């Protein structure tokens, strides 16, 4: 929305303008502040080493990829708590399918897992009108249980060497494939939300579902699609996990839903729908990655890391806010 609303200026109240825009820009300022802080304090500990920066990208990739789809979900006024568990399930189904049927089977089954989960989530929510919070929370348990059950809670090794090269493990020249995945998914997500009719409908449904329906939008279809997209993207993230660790395992992605939603909210997307920014979400994910990385490099204990991470997030948000607010 940045491009369509930033120039509103003029007529609207300053307070309104400020309230509308600070959450849109905050994350960039926050990100830069945090990055510079670590660059300054940790320059001798390799924070700026190219490999460390690439590591951050690698470690953040799955969260970032899921955050792109979650941006759509939150923009449409819904939520998806099942992404972490679905990623775990997809890592298992993909790994099992590769063992049985090779690479194509693995990829197909992995993505189909997402489609199936998404359809269940979506149909329950749009047909039976069960809030997505409940359907996806229930799905979180179902997906995890299913993954445990079909894998017998064991790790399923991925032995095909090509798979990890494409999904998560390899490099393309000097660039990790995971970084490419972030870019590809991010660009698609950004264009979909900003430039397509579907993206407009998503934002309208999240902004005012009644007005959207009165405008001739099939609101349940839009929601269904958004939920399916989220599940498929979660599956992709699971496949990336499987590639990076050369393993499918039900625990992969566990708890990611909170990190993903945090990245998206940090990025400036509203939990209440109607506005969202994909770029912000990716920066949000990277910011969390940078903080995690920097705190470890600092040599803090785990407990101190937890405290510092919370503090930094609040500080970054507060600082950026002060930055956008005039004298």
């Amino acid at each position, binding site marked *: *929305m940045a491009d*369509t*609303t*930033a*120039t*509103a*200026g*003029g*007529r*609207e*109240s*300053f307070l*309104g*303008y400020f309230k*509308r825009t600070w959450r849109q820009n905050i994350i960039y300022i926050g990100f830069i502040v945090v990055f510079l802080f670590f660059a300054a304090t940790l320059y001798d500990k390799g924070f700026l080493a190219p490999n460390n920066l690439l590591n951050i990208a690698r470690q953040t990739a799955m969260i970032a990829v899921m955050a792109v789809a979650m941006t759509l979900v939150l923009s449409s006024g819904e939520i998806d708590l099942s992404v972490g568990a679905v990623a775990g399930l997809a890592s298992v189904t993909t790994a099992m399918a590769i063992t049985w049927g090779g690479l194509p089977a693995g990829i197909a089954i992995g993505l189909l897992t997402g489609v199936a989960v998404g359809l269940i989530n979506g149909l329950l929510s749009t047909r039976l009108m069960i809030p997505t919070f409940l359907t996806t929370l229930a799905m979180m348990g179902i997906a995890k249980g299913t993954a445990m059950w079909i894998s017998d809670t064991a790790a399923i090794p991925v032995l095909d060497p090509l798979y990890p090269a494409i999904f998560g493990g390899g490099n393309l020249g000097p660039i990790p494939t995971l970084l490419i995945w972030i870019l590809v998914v991010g660009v698609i997500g950004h264009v979909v939300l900003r*430039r*397509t*009719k*579907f993206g*407009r*409908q998503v*934002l*309208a449904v999240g*902004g*005012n579902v*009644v*007005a*959207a*329906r*009165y*405008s*001739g*939008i*099939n609101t349940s279809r839009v929601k269904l699609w958004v939920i399916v997209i989220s599940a498929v993207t979660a599956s992709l993230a699971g496949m990336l996990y499987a590639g990076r660790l050369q393993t499918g395992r039900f625990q992969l992605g566990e708890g990611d839903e909170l990190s993903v939603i945090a990245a998206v909210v940090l990025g400036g997307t509203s939990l209440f729908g*109607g*506005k969202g920014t994909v770029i912000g979400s990716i920066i949000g994910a990277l910011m969390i990655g940078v903080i995690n990385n920097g705190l470890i490099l600092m040599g803090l204990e785990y407990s101190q890391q937890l405290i510092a991470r919370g503090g930094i997030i609040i500080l970054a948000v507060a600082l950026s806010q002060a930055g956008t607010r005039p004298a």
Partner: protein
Amino acid sequence: MIELAAKPIAVEMAAISKRFGGVHALREVSFSARSGEIHALLGENGAGKSTILKTLRGVQAPDSGTITIGGEVFDRLTPHVARQKGIGMIFQEMSLVPTLSVAQNVFLANELLTSAGLIDDRAMERRSAEIFGSMGVSINPAAIVADLSTGQQQLTEIAKALSQNAAVLVLDEPTSALTAGEVDILFGLLRRLRAEGKAIVYVSHRMDEIFRIADHATVLRDGRLIDSRPIADYTLATLIADIMGKATRDLSEFTTASTAQDEVILRVEHLSSKLRHGGDVSFSLRRGEVLGIAGLLGAGRSRLARMLFGLEPIAGGTITLRGRTTTIGSPKQATELGLALVPEDRRRQGLVLAHSIQDNIELPILKRLGSSPFVDLFKSRATTDDLIKRLAIKTVSREAAANSLSGGNQQKIVIGKWLATDPDILIMDEPTAGIDIGSKGEVLRLVRELAAEGKSIIFISSELAELMAVSDSIAVMSGGRLVETVDKADLLSSPGDAAELRAEQKLQLIVQRGGNHG
């Protein structure tokens, strides 16, 4: 003058200025209201009326200027202080909590308590029922506000303001969704309050109301104070000239000869809603015809509009569109069939308030903006700019959030977004609510132009003068049934101004009678 001087000033606002970003909403505006007087605040859309009144109610802080109440001078008020000082207000954008009940809203932040100090919902419902009773309207005090029609919400707002027994009562377009009957009741109440010595500030774009009720008028234009004088000093023409900055035509001047053709484009037979029993609507709409729909509050006019637009399930009856019997299951389908609906509640049904004008206008025409999955931004901008110009929407840019516009300008966006779909049948539910006298003329002219182009229009309005002006024939609804369709020619038995008035009275009579039967 002597009489005026005798009435004490209840509240005085001096040299109030307020900017929103680059917009000067108010420039050194002074305004005072006297006890025992009804003071009309007038001005075109975006003139600054709501802004100055919100300042008085303490929900917006002025950039400069002072407010004097009861000898005390304030730089700014808070809602709490304003309320303590006896200022009550009915906001233009209704400020009810949709999830609470009517009674809970009426007494919000002013709850009745039991002897134990707990909230007494029963007592509040009883008191609310009494207030509604004294207003002569029937609204269930236990109903949830989100489920009310716009008119009922407006009545709830009025009840809320009345329950506070304010010394200064501010009403910002309280009648935009009300029919003549409710307006009469409200005026009765206002006269009584005036007699009790309350100061009343009244905003309306309905000129006839001003002359009926107001003692004094203040006119704003572009955030400036233009004039303030007793109503007796004004004639309709001079008042409109003050408001618009130029002379404007009267509503009746939009009356043109009927452009209706013979082809019946829409025929509705015995239509009834699943959600309310006892409905029965039959009519036919010809190409190029403007069919007005009149009725009392709750007569089922909006319901009819929703049924035609696929928003409310149909229990029985048929809809024949261009000679083919159709079922309309969703607004999407309705849009594809060439229908459009300007809904009555702009904030709830018409707009995504946080989104820009352009985004709002784009919404129903996404299909037309190119065949690719991408939005054709160029075309979208062009369409938006065109509509902003055509409807004289007062905004700095098409990128401004709908929220930041004045009420009347928001309404224009809603009209604009449906005009952009270029429909064959345009259903308009109270389309001129909140629109100023000048623009209202423009909208009516537009409707006639569309009719002349061969479009058909169903025009629902609570303002009979406007219905008379724009319609070819007028259907009267009551209790969900369409009870009578009158040809305008029959109402206008004799030419001239006097006849016009008589015609309106005749229509009013039919509307009331329909109500009595139903």
